[in-house]
């Protein structure tokens, strides 16, 4: 597992799974992303750090086109996300195409966002059955395996509100995995959890990392980041101000802001 860096472009190198180039995004006059370049190698784990409002969530949301960038582009698995290049222009794709691209990228939210009116099983099989046309019995069997993997086999018929926060987040991870994505995005997956529930969720993510899942994780769990990440990226004011091996970024940050932030978090 080798960390991709924005410079990894030399011939012969394997093309990174995710390439972000010159990404800019404003809300009104507020520039949230100000030219972000980032590479994520297949099978690697990238941790995104940064103070509140630095644009971490926005960057993550641009990767599966929940947010439309103003300039620059995101490429996942060789395809420009949300656009098609033709005649010197990027034409936004029709909804159906964007939907197809999103099936390659799973996302886990801070607030879980499980569907409250569906059971755990229904949450897991909804997208595979509706989008990928998996036969229902196969989807149900797969859901059972995934729930076992996150330590929740047997809770298929529970409704989300009958589960603890940690259990809900593990179901949300299983739901994302059910689509067999090539990349998983996590936006502060443990920030809404009680301290004693954080460990069980991080354990599941750690297992995924060992299994070679490509992931971009926004987190404030520095110890966890140091342990699982192949690459750490520090965002401030919509720019990447520090990136590289976790040991360098987390322990010996050159940037002033990064140093202040990390000493506050640790």
């Amino acid at each position, binding site marked *: 597992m080798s960390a991709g860096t924005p410079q990894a472009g030399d011939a012969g190198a394997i093309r990174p799974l995710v390439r972000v180039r010159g990404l800019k995004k404003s809300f009104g006059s507020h520039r949230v992303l100000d030219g972000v370049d980032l590479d994520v190698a297949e099978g690697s784990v990238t941790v995104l750090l940064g103070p509140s409002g630095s644009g971490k969530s926005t960057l993550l949301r641009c990767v*599966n086109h929940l947010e439309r960038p103003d300039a620059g582009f995101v490429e996942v698995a060789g395809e420009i996300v949300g656009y098609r290049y033709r005649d010197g222009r990027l034409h936004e794709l029709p*909804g159906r195409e964007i*939907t197809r691209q999103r*099936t390659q990228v799973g*996302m886990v939210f801070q607030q879980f*966002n499980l569907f409250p009116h569906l059971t755990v099983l229904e949450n897991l099989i909804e*997208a595979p059955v509706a989008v990928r046309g998996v036969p229902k019995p196969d989807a149900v069997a797969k859901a059972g395996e995934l729930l076992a993997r996150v330590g929740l086999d047997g809770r298929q018929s529970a*409704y989300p509100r009958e589960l603890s926060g940690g259990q809900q987040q593990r179901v949300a991870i299983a739901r994302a995995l059910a689509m067999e994505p090539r990349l998983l995005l996590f936006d502060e997956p443990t920030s809404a959890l009680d301290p004693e529930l954080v460990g069980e969720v991080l354990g599941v993510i750690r297992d995924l990392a060992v299994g070679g899942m490509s992931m971009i994780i926004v987190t404030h769990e520095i110890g966890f980041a140091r342990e699982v990440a192949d690459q750490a990226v520090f965002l401030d004011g919509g720019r990447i101000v520090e990136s590289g091996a976790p040991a360098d970024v987390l322990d010996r940050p050159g940037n002033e802001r990064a140093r202040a932030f990390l000493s506050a978090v640790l």
Partner: protein
Amino acid sequence: MTSDVSERTALPSAPADEHLLTARLVAPRRPGLWISAAILLVLAAMLIHTLVTNRRFQWPTVRGYFFERSILHGLELTIWLTAAVLVTGYVIGTAVAAARLSKNPVLKSLGFGFVWLIRSVPMLVQLLFWYELASLYPKLSLGIPFGPEFASFKTAHLFGGILAAYVALSLDVAAFSAEIVRGGILSVPAGQVEAAQALGLGRGRIFRRIVLPQAMPAIVPASGNLLIGMLKATSIVSVIAVQDLLYSAQLIYNENFQIIPLLLVATLWYVVLTTVLSIGQYFVERHYARGTNRRGDGFARLFRRNLPLFNRAGLAAGGRS
């Protein structure tokens, strides 16, 4: 703190732990609930008593006309007019809600304009407008806007009383249901849509499977109101001589002057229909309460819980469960 507790346990009246451990649990009784219920039941009984015993209501006459042919025809018309109006109204209303929620400024304004216009004009005026359309626009034609015509109709043949009623009432329901549906959709957290998008679900699927079921708990009670209101509001069509339930009753009392009994006949039928609809609404609401703790207690459970007020033995049977 600890000395406080030991002092209290030392009080002569304090029970020993083993007594507490073997004690039977007793659910809270609600005498207030039963007393207020009793008072209301007595008042209801008095009301029914005066209704039944006051001879001037002429119940035998009411019974005689209750299944009268023309009344049943009127009833039939009221039922299907209401049904047709609601289906059409909600289809248009949902589309208008979608327009108001869309990002397209033209659709947004048109949706807003439609709701504004229909809600501003009294229903009676709308009804008369469609009924009198022939005098405003004697001819309607199909063709390219401002260009050549392909076909044209004489409106005089187009808008009879029933059709005018159907169009006017449907548009009215459309405007009000649009706001109900829009409110329901806005009540679903944005994170639900984003999670569904991130899973790659398509727009239609997200609306039908994720947003609408979660909007329903907000939509159903208000829709029940609108539906029942519309059931009775259809009686407005009597002004353009459409023979609905109320107008059929009016036609009879215009001949025999039994005004009160015939109004009672119509009223009782409206009560029957409203009852059926209210029961239906209860089950629809229960269906959409999936995954919440709002499924309600129901009479049976409320009664069983309060049983000890009347019957102490009843608790032992249903006691700690």
